[in-house]
């Protein structure tokens, strides 16, 4: 029988918020009387003194005043460092009160930002690992995050001024994203998870990962999707279909078999968990990644159940569609005219009365998309003259013009056509004439155009 008595905590942990730890901690300690009003006042005065110190350091002692927003940011940096220091205590919740009474806030702040610095260095280590395990896939958010998101952060972050420092501009979503953390704590956790996601994905051929993504959606490369989740789900599908884990490919037939398997199974969650445990065993997954994979299961199981009910399992287990990848075309613009020459060309077109002459001037002088758009926006053509110009352009040239409008598919075209016909359009004159021009084309011709529009990058 355990005779030791645990002293009941007087402070209520649920009142202490992770994001405002120091502030809510002191308020809670004061509420239960562990800090007196005088203690709180002294802490407030120390905080103000600390803020003054940081303002002086931030302005390199060159300014006696700062903008209120700057002071607020500096206060957040101070509180974040204090939060980190106080959260480091792992014992009884009241230990923090002893710390606040025994050490000055300045000392705790310095200890806190030293801890932040250590975390920052750990972020660097994990970022290196992320780069080493990077997947060679065509997904804009993933690649942009790898290449650019962290440049300024690692170049300019200062632990002492954590909230004035640049934060990474992250687009790529994780499978499990914990928004409870902040600043370097969040970035550390993000990079750690991303590294482990990469590790798991690297167990499979990268070409198959690309095919899996392309099979999921024709525009997946521009979508904010989590690659690890797609790979994990197809791996689960392969495991349940008794296929090896060297590949990720599933067929429509496999999806139908899985549908039957799930329909006859009372406990889908248990089935999926068993499959994941087999994957973990086969791929020798241990530690953080193992827990991460298991933590990722509940929302996956929920989606599987919903898709089983609707007989749409091929929307979560992705059957491979080979040859569906549409290559994107990257457009490089031609050389633009100098301003003076462009101006003279516009004057010449405006002073001409003949459409043929206007088009000739255009063809002789304009050799870039930029100039074409500027030409159209200069409104030196009228009514059907625009359509004469469009008639002289090729399909790719028309598609490039459309990239500068909000007309990208049949639906948006029909909406704009209706607005133009009802005199409710907000389009510019050249855009309206373009709509009329397209209205005279067959739907099949327009369909070809939309395909080019959607697969060209300007």
């Amino acid at each position, binding site marked *: 029988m355990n005779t030791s008595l645990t002293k009941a905590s007087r402070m209520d942990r649920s009142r202490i918020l992770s994001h405002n730890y120091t502030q809510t901690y002191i308020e809670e300690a004061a509420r239960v009387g562990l800090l007196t009003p005088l203690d709180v006042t002294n802490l407030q005065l120390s905080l103000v003194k600390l803020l003054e110190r940081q303002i002086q350091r931030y302005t390199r002692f060159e300014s*006696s005043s700062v903008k209120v927003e700057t002071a607020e940011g500096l206060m957040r940096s101070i509180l974040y460092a204090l939060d980190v220091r106080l959260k480091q205590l792992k014992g009884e919740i009241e230990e923090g009160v002893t710390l606040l009474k025994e050490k000055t806030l300045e000392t705790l702040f310095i200890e806190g930002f030293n801890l932040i610095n250590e975390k920052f260095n750990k972020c660097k280590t994990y970022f290196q690992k992320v780069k080493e395990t990077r997947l060679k896939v065509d997904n804009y958010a993933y690649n942009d995050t790898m290449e650019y998101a962290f440049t300024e952060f690692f170049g300019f972050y200062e632990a002492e001024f954590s909230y004035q420092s640049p934060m990474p501009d992250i687009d790529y979503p994780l499978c499990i994203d914990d928004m409870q953390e902040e600043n370097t704590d969040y970035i550390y956790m993000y990079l750690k998870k991303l590294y482990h996601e990469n590790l798991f994905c690297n167990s499979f051929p990268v070409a198959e990962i690309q095919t899996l993504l392309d099979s999921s959606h024709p525009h997946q490369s521009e979508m904010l999707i989590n690659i690890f989740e797609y790979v994990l789900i197809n791996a689960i599908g392969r495991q349940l279909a008794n296929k090896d884990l060297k590949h990720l490919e599933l067929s429509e037939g496999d999806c139908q078999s899985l549908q039957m398997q799930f329909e006859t199974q009372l406990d889908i969650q248990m089935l999926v968990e068993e499959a994941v445990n087999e994957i973990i065993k086969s791929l020798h997954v241990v530690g953080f990644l193992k827990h991460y994979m298991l933590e990722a299961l509940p929302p996956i199981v929920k989606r599987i159940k919903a898709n089983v009910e609707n007989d749409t399992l091929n929307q979560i287990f992705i059957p491979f569609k080979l040859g569906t990848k549409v290559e994107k075309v990257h457009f490089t613009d031609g050389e633009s005219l100098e301003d003076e020459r462009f101006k003279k060309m516009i004057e010449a077109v405006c002073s001409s009365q003949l459409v043929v002459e206007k088009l000739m001037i255009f063809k002789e002088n304009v050799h870039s998309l930029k100039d074409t758009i500027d030409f159209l926006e200069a409104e030196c053509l009228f009514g059907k003259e625009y359509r004469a110009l469009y008639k002289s352009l090729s399909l790719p040239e028309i598609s490039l013009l459309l990239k500068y409008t909000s007309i990208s598919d049949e639906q948006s075209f029909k909406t704009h056509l209706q607005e133009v016909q009802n005199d409710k359009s907000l389009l510019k004159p050249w855009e309206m004439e373009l709509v009329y021009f397209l209205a005279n084309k067959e739907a099949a011709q327009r369909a070809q155009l939309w395909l080019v529009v959607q697969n060209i990058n300007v």
Partner: protein
Amino acid sequence: MKMEKQQSFLPQAIISQINKTELMACNDYTKKYGLLLTEEETMQILERRKTSLQSYGRIEIGGGMLDKLIKEFCDSPYLNSQNYASTIAELTELFYYFKNEALDKLSDEELLKIMHMYFDGPCGGSLELLGQSALEQMTRHVRYGEAEYTKLEERGELYMGDDLNEY
């Protein structure tokens, strides 16, 4: 003793208090130029400082910059015993306004020196020209990251025309 009401820990407002005695101590330095502040004038300057800081969304720590401003401008040929207090008050407001306009890229010392240079120079003691022309042009150059923003007059780029609305 338990706190009956949850008290917020964060201080709600921080504007450093400069007392009038500290400011009036500048008289020891400025009296050789025939410039002295009365108690009432000192209070008016402090009030102007406070409202300017609030209007322009700034907070000031420590002793502030008023004593530096007074010491910088006290030898100006355009200050006399009649306009001394009102000019200092106006310069105080201009100072905080242009700290913002220069995006805090200028130190206190640098901005005060530039203000003094223009005030005594091309502005000929006119606070209107200083605030609406010279400093506007200078801080525009600072915002655009141009290096030699103190040499606009030398380069003939400082416009001090009659039409102050041009800028």
